[in-house]
């Protein structure tokens, strides 16, 4: 999937992946896609909840081994 920016949140635990994502989205313009890679198993539910509550769209999430990848489109 195409993306405009990438955030490496590997090794970070709750709530840091969400906080870093929020910060990275602040630097994006509307419609841009942010890719996030995380190793926190809790982030799967958290990013879905984050997207739902902030109105930014979670385009896709994938799991490969112990890494989780998310694509979020800025509102």
């Amino acid at each position, binding site marked *: 999937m195409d993306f405009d920016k990438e955030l490496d949140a590997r*090794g*970070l*635990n*709750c*709530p*840091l992946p*969400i*906080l870093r*994502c*929020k910060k990275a989205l602040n630097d994006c313009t509307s419609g841009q896609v942010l890719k996030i890679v995380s*190793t*926190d198993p809790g982030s799967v539910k958290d990013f879905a909840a*984050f997207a739902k*509550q*902030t109105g930014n769209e979670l385009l896709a999430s994938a799991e490969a081994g112990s890494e989780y990848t998310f694509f979020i489109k800025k509102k």
Partner: protein
Amino acid sequence: MDDQKKMAIIATKGTLDWAYPPFILASTAAALGYETQIFFTFYGLQMLRKDLSGLKVSPLGNPGMPMKMPFGPKWFRGINWNMPNAIQSLVPGYEIVATALMKQTIKNNGVASIPELRELCQEAEVKFIACQMTVELFGFDHSEFIDGIEYGGAATFFEFAGETDICLYI
């Protein structure tokens, strides 16, 4: 009334472990778009000090706290070193060692430090209010606390808390 969601927290504890819930919840709420305020009262004031190195954990009288080593082989890390209270209370420096081990465990797990979380809250414009009554009661001085906080009392808290969607006592 505007439709922005709001959250208020009363933070009353002054230990390293109990400093986490208010700062984690406040920083996350701010990231989710909540207008957020924390009212620090009694021991909670310790979380507003310029120097946070005084925040400690105490395993004494806390049977829920696992005492595990943050280093060594896996089997060694799995051992729970909980001691009877009577022994803990006799060993000088027990809390200092427990705190050092806890800080290492926090680091190993990619969990943010309290100074880092507090800064993230401030960056996200979480409002900090220190209970002025407790400042006087405990003989503290405003110079001991970080800048950018307000001092107020119960009525100040209710002014915001009365309008909130979520209100927590920690």
